[in-house]
């Protein structure tokens, strides 16, 4: 079986890329291991940031619905419940589907498998009731069930405070936000909502232990300085759920398997595939976009997907060089505007380092 472009992962980056590449005339196969496309769009009920071009002010799940609709209208070939289990020489993509492995020979491959939440290891971290903040978000916003009644959030970044607020709104008691750094990590607008609701922020604190008989019943938090827990500052809090929001890391197993050059970029989640300004990796014809190409946001993921799709379309001869360059510049300008401000600038600098590392082995 042959397809011009195989896109792995139908989240924000993959959907946006599939739409762009199809519009440019590429023959696209979009593969996702889940039952439905959309990745983690449908748990993101908050309004997005950015400019109008980035659907700012629109809630994440609404953007997801729009992308799914466009994908359908364009007649993009989508394989769901299909896991890519390997990328082999000659850009052959092995897909496990209906219990059978099918091999698809691609001219270009775009890997946008997203990211995974980082765990935090502390005594009791494996107890039922300790979960990723993203898991809690999925429970309340997708499955419409509360993960617990009394919830402690570890991490005050955007994920931590947005999820905490959504849990609070849905009826849970958020007993506090614990932050190891000396300041709140999230945008002020999100943190302010929790402060107004009277949720305490334990700044310069960390989780020391989760206790219980066979599930979380109590959290012990303590002051945290220079990477150490200060003895004697421990305090107990009655909780039934501890959510961990301490960042995400790129899921890049497939890129590693394909021999793509990797680097360590802490600001973007750590070990990640290195790519150029076209989103192409060190392996010609293999591209990355979205959280796989460094953890950022859904809005940047969509534009990186589009950028990769334009590059692919040009490489395959569906777009002439001049048109492609113009499109790429427009997308790069949009990405630059998303990478502004104190948070964005940090990501922009990190992305520039990725580019500087270069895709030659």
């Amino acid at each position: 079986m042959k397809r011009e472009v195989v896109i792995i992962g139908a989240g924000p980056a993959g959907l946006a890329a599939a739409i762009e590449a199809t519009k440019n005339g590429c023959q696209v196969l979009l593969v996702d291991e889940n039952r439905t496309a959309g990745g983690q769009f449908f748990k993101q009920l908050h309004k997005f940031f950015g400019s109008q071009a980035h659907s700012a002010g629109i809630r994440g799940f609404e953007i997801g619905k729009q992308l799914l609709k466009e994908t359908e209208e364009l007649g993009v070939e989508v394989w769901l419940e299909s896991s890519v289990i390997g990328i082999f020489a000659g850009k052959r993509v092995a897909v496990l589907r209906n219990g059978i492995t099918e091999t698809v020979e691609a001219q270009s491959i775009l890997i946008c498998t997203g990211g995974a939440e980082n765990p935090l290891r502390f005594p009791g971290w494996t107890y039922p009731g300790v979960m990723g903040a993203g898991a809690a978000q999925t429970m309340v916003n997708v499955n419409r069930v509360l993960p617990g009644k009394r919830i402690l959030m570890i991490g005050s970044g955007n994920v931590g405070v947005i999820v905490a607020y959504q849990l609070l709104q849905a009826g849970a008691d958020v007993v506090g936000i614990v932050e190891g750094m000396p300041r709140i990590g999230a945008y002020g607008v999100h943190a302010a909502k929790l402060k107004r609701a009277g949720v305490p922020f334990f700044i310069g604190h960390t989780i020391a232990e989760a206790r219980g008989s066979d599930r979380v019943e109590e959290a012990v938090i303590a002051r945290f300085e220079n990477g150490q827990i200060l003895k004697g500052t421990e305090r107990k809090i009655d909780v039934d759920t501890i959510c961990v929001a301490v960042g995400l890391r790129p899921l890049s197993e497939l890129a590693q398997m394909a021999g793509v050059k990797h680097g360590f970029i802490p600001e973007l989640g750590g070990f990640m595939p290195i790519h150029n300004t076209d989103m192409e990796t060190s392996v010609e014809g293999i591209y990355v976009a979205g959280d796989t190409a460094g953890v950022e946001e859904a809005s940047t993921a969509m534009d990186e997907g589009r950028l990769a799709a334009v590059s692919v379309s040009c490489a395959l001869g569906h777009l002439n060089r001049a048109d492609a360059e113009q499109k790429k510049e427009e997308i790069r300008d949009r990405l630059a505007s998303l990478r502004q401000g104190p948070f964005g600038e940090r990501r922009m600098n990190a992305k520039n380092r990725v580019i500087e590392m270069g895709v030659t082995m």
Partner: protein
Amino acid sequence: MDEMRVKNHPILGEDNCEEFVEITVDGKVMQAKKGEMIAAVLLANGIKIHRYTAKEHKPRGIFCGIGQCTDCVMTVNGKANVRTCITPVEDGMTVETQEGYGRKKP
């Protein structure tokens, strides 16, 4: 334990699910919303332990919620290691707390 259900979601609005199915969890019959994930039914019923580890018999529950970590696996319709966070309920489904890898002891 129906209080764990978010009937009126601040953004999604009211839950207008009208179709329900029945599943059996460790011998107990439970009502579930058609098509919802097994893990959601368990949470709504206050069940947090999905399995016990093979070596040390330690409890495990939901951790990632999106099918990546496999912490929430259970034995479903006799099949071991089913990821309950991404597997929807079906009428008449049997769900069991899993011991170890779910292999029957000889």
